[in-house]
């Protein structure tokens, strides 16, 4: 089937198999490999992207369901060191990443979390990121980064 999805501000029209998941559409059809896959049971959040302003796990959304929608991935946030989104910058300043595998999904989830709740507390960050797993950081610095960004545009979309 044919889908037309606005990805990072650019209209993408492609023919895909009906069963194609959004995450594979991003990674394989568009070559946007920043979005990762870490599980097959919707538990890890490595695939998190923002669709129409809401964070979604792109492994649970069919490309067909995203037809006509706006999708934002890590590649569409800040694209270089000098042009980072406040959330990306907070992750960097607070050493909130190690192997980097959870990072794109974690950043997207965090942006959405802060977007919805700019005065977020530590407990709310921890609850809010429950669906985004990280094996490296012990979450300590991720929580710190999200709280730091919350006060400085971390939820801007």
């Amino acid at each position: 089937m044919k889908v037309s999805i606005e990805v990072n501000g650019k209209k993408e029209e492609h023919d895909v198999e009906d069963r194609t998941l959004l995450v594979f559409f991003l990674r394989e059809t568009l070559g946007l490999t920043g979005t990762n896959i870490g599980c097959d049971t919707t538990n890890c959040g490595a695939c998190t992207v923002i669709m129409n302003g809401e964070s979604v796990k792109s492994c649970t959304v069919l490309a067909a369901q995203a037809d006509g929608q706006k999708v934002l991935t890590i590649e569409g946030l800040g694209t270089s060191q000098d042009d980072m989104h406040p959330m990306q910058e907070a992750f960097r300043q607070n050493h909130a990443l190690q192997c980097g595998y959870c990072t794109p999904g974690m950043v997207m989830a965090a942006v959405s979390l802060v977007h919805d709740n700019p005065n977020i507390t530590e407990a709310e960050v921890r609850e809010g990121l429950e669906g985004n797993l990280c094996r490296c950081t012990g979450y300590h610095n991720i929580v710190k980064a999200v709280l730091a960004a919350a006060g400085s545009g971390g939820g801007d979309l």
Partner: protein
Amino acid sequence: MSILGNRVLRKEDPKFLTVGGTYVDDIGLAGALHVAYVRSTFAHARILSIDTEEARKAPGVVAVYTAADVDLGPRPPEMPMFNQAMTRSLLADDTVRFVGECVAAVVADTRARAVDAAELVQIDYDPLPAVVDVETALRDETLLFPAAGTNLAMDMTFGTDEHFMDGCEVVVRHQFLNHRVAPCPLEVRAASAEWSPEGRLTQYSSTQAPHGVKSGLAGALALDEAQVRVLSPDVGGGFGAKMGTYPEELLVAWMARRLGRPVRWVETRSESMVGLGHGRGQLQEVEIGGSRDGRILAYRLNVIQDGGAYPAIGAVLPFMTRTMLSGVYDIPKVEFNSRSVVTNTTPTVAYRGAGRPEATAAIERVLDMFAAEIGMDPAEVRRRNLIQKDAFPFTTPTGTVYDIGDYVRALDLALEAADYPALRAAQKQRRESGATKQLGIGLSVYVEITNGMPSSEFGAVEVRPDGTVVVRTGTSPHGQGHVTAWAMLVSEQLGIPIESIEVVHGDTDVVPRGVGTFGSRSLQAGGVAVNQAATAVVERARQLAADLLEANPDDVILDKVGQRFHVQGTPAAGRSWKELAAEAESQGGLTAEVDFTAPGPTFPFGAHLVVAEVDTETGLVEIKRIVAVDDAGKILNPMLAEGQVHGGLAQGVAQALLEEVRYDEDGNPVTANLADYAFVTAAELPSFERIAMETPTPVNELGAKGIGESGTIGSTPAVHNAVCDALVHLGVRHVPMPTSPQRVWRAINEATGKASA
């Protein structure tokens, strides 16, 4: 002004944060085929037949392979101490020995089609009795390898002294299961292979040790090592489990050769939960004896290690447990015996701490039981037995030589930071008021071994004519931040800013030799090699500058701020790095290579204190505080070191509280995906309170020890002790790990006599 010891932000991060890392499965190879493995659904069975007919006919399928097709033969265990009859075929031959073992491989033009076709492979099994636990294995009633005549893969028994506990006023014994856990790097395993027309293999691998994979591939495929290039781009975590060369990876190379086309493979998480090695799995009989005034006189540990279906690194880890047997304590008599057995479960491998957490967990938990028995504060019992600061280098009864430490200070720092007396007072109050939520305070004082078996590591530094630097390292970071850390070391020596220093790793063609990143070895092995290479480059440059300036090299100094060499006192006439590198170009460049082997391991140590709140009605545990003192010698970059500690703490807490790999009685895994496995999340953890302590080691010039595993080693027993401590006044002696609500609830009810059902 030194850059060392500063919180330098990572050079790696902008890429990870803006476009994401480049992991193996992000790399497409032109014309590549995809493989999906068909895995055993039985723990132990004979394969009667395999029907691949339907799969072969499926759309897009190029080939289907079974053991009969693979001409590489079964391989005996790599380590010579294992029973050599316990061989493994890359695809299961006539018998499957664990759920998840590869039986067939389906290659197709797309991944989805390979997966679809894999479902069509029909395997007829004749089930055999499954050996799921180590005690059953030891009875040898069902043998995994009849040719071996036993399930015992490795025997390390030294005997038992009947009079061992003579003279002890109090003896406490207990059986602990240091249960299996899944390493769960967030990136699962992936590999892809491509052969050149000349027969040279290029393999991409998600590994901690690319040079090890290179040797593994060369060995398995009977190639000269020069015919193999291994690339490990960004790697999404390893934690010890991505060290060896797995059958799936060897097969990818084999299939690519057979088909004459590139082949790609990435497992699913559900495959990874059974295919990637597991950690721990040690059944421990622990006995501790001492006097009523708190002096420990004798300590004995007998273990049965679960090796899983095919003996690998996990089965040899009791050796590390023995190395760290008596921990931070000065105990006159110790005894250790271990037997490693095979079972019908996923093979065990190294996992963060690898053999040392098991040692620490045993002694730290039983020490608390001993303290409860004699009615003494657990902190006081520890204090009375700690090895004293002036006793180093200290030789333990098992012959381990600890380099340096100050264990009393570590304990004091943790107690002070947590305000231990206040915590005990709060606990007392809750106990007296009979509050539903009781407070537990758990301690652990630990020492561990890093760079345990020192081997050579490669480091090279080259200043290029444009004044930039390239560093090549044999270590293989996957989150640790070597790109930044090694650049800091070089910048310190050369004065060139880290922005101009590139660090290259994970390509065996560019880095000629290397060992990799595991066992918390990287800084003290690879970091020192890089540091020495940098020093050597400075010396070469000084010599060259002296020649050009017609001066005595001893009079030539490096002005690090100006990044140039000149004769002392006459800064005007000098040569910059750029000029010297250009000058050296005709003479092989301004470069130095070092292979460094440390004279011995180092022994990081620390003290962790955990405060837990336990709901006595529901059994639910909430961790309120984690205070961690971790001393890994001199710290190169505190930000990176803290990150390592944080991650380690989380994984240690996870083992104590949540995570456990479980099998049913038939050997079916019941935690084989991330919905069923209790992977620790942000919601279950508090923020950590880390207290810095630095006791430089004399073992290397950086004064550095490893920091990668300490957090895990110290925190598991501290959490475990905290949970048990919350309940000790109710008569609960012990709660097995992980301390799930059900287990806690049952322990309370058993102790208080309410357990009627």
